């Protein structure tokens, strides 16, 4: 199965709101292998990852498809977004949670050796648990 990845920036620092999400298409079921966060603007920040409370109903605005790591692989079907017409709602259960110091460059790389499965048309959200950094970088690696 080919790998796909992407690096993105979100400026949504609002507390109790999504700042980034990743979503399977209607015809694929990818596995998330890695998710990295690093903040560009200094702010003590708390993030969590989980499946949105409204998983399956999220509508991404201007979704950006991931990029194939192998130039011979077909185009990705998995999309990411930092804005939504129907935004992800708070996860009922969380998979990862982290707090950063008030320092530019603070970050984390989470790896998932067997992959976090996203069902068809469903996904994962990075959620602002506090008034977070106003500029944060994300990297995702997915096996489709």
């Amino acid at each position, binding site marked *: 199965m080919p790998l796909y990845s992407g*690096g993105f920036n979100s400026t949504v620092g609002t507390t109790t709101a999504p700042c980034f999400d990743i979503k399977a298409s209607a015809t694929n079921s990818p596995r998330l292998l890695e998710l990295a966060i690093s903040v*560009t603007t200094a702010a003590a920040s708390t993030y969590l990852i989980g499946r949105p409370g409204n998983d399956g109903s999220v509508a991404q605005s201007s979704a950006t498809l991931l*990029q194939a790591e192998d130039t011979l692989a077909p185009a990705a079907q998995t999309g990411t977004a930092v804005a939504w017409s129907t935004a992800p709602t708070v996860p009922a259960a969380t998979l990862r949670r982290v707090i950063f110091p008030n320092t530019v460059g603070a970050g984390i790389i989470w790896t998932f050796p067997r992959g976090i499965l996203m069902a068809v048309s469903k996904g994962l959200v990075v959620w602002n648990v506090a008034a977070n950094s106003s500029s944060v970088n994300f990297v995702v690696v997915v096996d489709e």
Partner: protein
Amino acid sequence: MAIYSQTALTTVTTTGAPAWDVKASSVNSPRVMEIGLSLGAATASTYGLGRPANDGSVAQTTPVLLNAENPNDPASQTGTAVAWGTAPTAPTIFLRRVATVAAITGGVLWTFPRGLSCAVSKGLVVWNLATNSASLHVWIVVDE
């Protein structure tokens, strides 16, 4: 397949400009296994890694070929550069993105277990997403 690697130092700090690139020759299609960035000057820096928008048209100035990790292997065909006749332009979508702390040795190590492929005559660029460190150490490991 053989492993080749190299280190480089770039002093190109301009925001919205390439800092370093790697490019396949006209007869090879290498896979990047690892890229590391390490700051030599204490400046909070933001970098992106991606395929140049003008991929295939980049003209490196004085490209430096990688070094074989096994001295019995043939010479590398993959070159890196920190200056260009035709410079890489900004990737449309980044594959990796990171913000570093404002401290010497701030940085990141990206690994690509299955290899990030570069098609014939194409490559990857490390892009300055801010006014970055005046001194950036880069290393790369490639499977040719």
